[in-house]
């Protein structure tokens, strides 16, 4: 068992599950989407990205790319949330929540791709 692989798999999978947990629920209902969960998903996604740095293999490069996509989506979602609540002052109205959740949904797809790639890489490992 390689502790590095465990941590890597853990963070990649955790990024997906947290993201999924946030997206679950009605798309425009603020009660179904808690901001703490978005925060956790963003932090874990960033950590997963950094863990993928500096891998020169082809699959490593694609993993890094999917992670960067997820980060971009989640950062955009956080920015929309912050803008609505503190700058324009519109608060958590259904429109804002819908756009935040749909952005996070995009990140969900990217994280899903990450996990699929990870599974493929693991399956290809013959030992």
């Amino acid at each position, binding site marked *: 068992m390689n502790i590095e692989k465990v941590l890597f798999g853990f963070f990649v999978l955790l990024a997906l599950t947290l993201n999924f947990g946030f997206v679950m629920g009605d798309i425009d209902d603020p009660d179904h989407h808690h*901001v*703490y969960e978005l*925060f956790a998903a963003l*932090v874990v996604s*960033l*950590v997963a990205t*950094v*863990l993928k*740095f*500096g891998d*020169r293999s082809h699959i490593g490069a694609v993993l890094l790319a999917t992670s960067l996509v997820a980060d971009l989506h989640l950062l955009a979602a*956080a920015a929309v*949330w*912050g803008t609505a*609540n*503190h700058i324009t002052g519109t608060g958590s109205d259904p429109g804002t929540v819908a756009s935040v959740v749909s952005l996070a949904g995009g990140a969900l797809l990217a994280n899903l791709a990450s996990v699929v790639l990870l599974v493929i890489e693991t399956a290809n490992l013959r030992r």
Partner: protein
Amino acid sequence: MEDVIYLFLRRMRAPLIVLIAAYSVSVGGLVLIPGVDDQGNRWYMDFFHAFYFVSFMGSTIGFGEIPYPFTAAQRLWVAICIFFTVLAWLYAIGRIFALVQDPAFRQAMREARFILAVRAIRTPFHIVCGYGETGSLLVRAMARRGFQCVVIDREQDHLNALALESLGSDVPAFCGDVGDTQTLLEAGLRKSLCQTVVAVTDSDDANVKVAITAKLLHPSVKVICRSGSQSASDNLASFNTDHIINAYDAFGEHLAMAMRTPSVHLLHAWLISLPGKKLRPPVTPPYGKWIICGHGRFGRAVRQYLEQEGNQTIVIEQRPEWAPSDAVIGPATEAGPLLQAGVRDAVGIVVGIDSDTNTLSSVMTARALNPRLYTVARQQRRANTALFQAAKIDLVMEPSRIIVWRMLPLITTPMLTRFLRLLRTGDERRAQMILERVRTVCRGMTPQTWSVDIGIDATPAVQALLDSGQPVSVGDLLRERLDRDERLPALALMHTRGAENVLMPDPERSLQAGDRLLFCGRDGTRHDMEWVLYNRKALEYVVTGIDIPDGAVWRWLRRRRAATAATGHP
């Protein structure tokens, strides 16, 4: 460049994760700990403000407690977070500095910069492998003449010396193993602009490796290689290395040349040296009995050439296993062996023993015994130049200088090499005649030597005039562009058409496309000549004596006047 990015990302993993962890834990804590707002209500900080607060807290800027003064619980958490985030930053920044100092990272950076510099070269360039005494002399001489070089050397110290030298142009240099194919490729070996590969490291093996790599990967490139032994020379010749230069052979050859045909030797020296310096006086080694001290590579080569010229030689050598059968065995620095070799009735002495100090000592001893001796000595270290000058030695042989002397015309003006070869096969009288003309034209200064290819690229004006049916002769190119009866201070040394080479061509000799000319002249004349090579108006004037008017109106007026003159009435 990719290596650098990967290395950077890989090394920055841990610090970045520590930073993300520190920030997220701090932000998370601030969001979860309840505070009290200005009305005394229970209040939770939102993520936006928490992130803002942690950002300025972590970087120790500290704008204060916002948006409301903190409670004791919040302050306790912030006190912990300050240490946490500041340490994380220190760790990350420390890692960045450590990385920048890291030898592997610096080497990767240097490599990346070198590749970029080579990629940016847009002119023909020459790769020089080895920047020791020979390499540095060669690169300096080439840079002064405006040739672009790329340097590879194994020693960073040598390259530091290159960085300190003011060469006028930017010379990309890289510290790496010249035997490594990758290094040569990074130096631009495969690029079509790469003209020459010069191998002048002090190891024969490395030179051979460079030569074979260059020949295999870029067959049309010219490979010039230094060789220190006969076996290396044979090896290099076996795979068609273009030019192999053995310093000792070259020196022996020059010494013999100076004896038999002093004018050829002198002309050689003049044409190769930097333009605009004082002309060297001729060297005149005498015929007779020569003493050769030291029978190593140098002594052997010199002895062979001296005997070829009909001189009598006697060797003094300390190591019996190196000495020929008739040699005097003993140290050449002492009077005994010198007297035994017959120093009193010898005409000259050639000294090349283990160190410069011993060489000088031997020369001084011999001269004390026979003050009329012609002295030839080998100098090994360039730093000892002052000593050798002070010793007033007639002919100093410095291997690195000889090699550069030989290589330079091969790279800068290949036509000059051919000219000198033809000159060597010719007789002394012709060389003396050329020598006198060069001396008069250049007024006692060393000449500038350049070649001109007649064609649309190098001489558009000549080509245009030839195409219009007007013949142009060699002498026309040597006319002054402001007054065609005056001559430029230059000489046409050789005219090449196909395989035919004509030395000192007649001024009336007409030119055609594809011809090549070799000129030498006073420093700066090349620039003056470019007028007639590039400017059709200037060329037509020097060829025909007619100054073409500049504008359409004036041309029309002239045509009209010519027509009037022809018919006789307006």
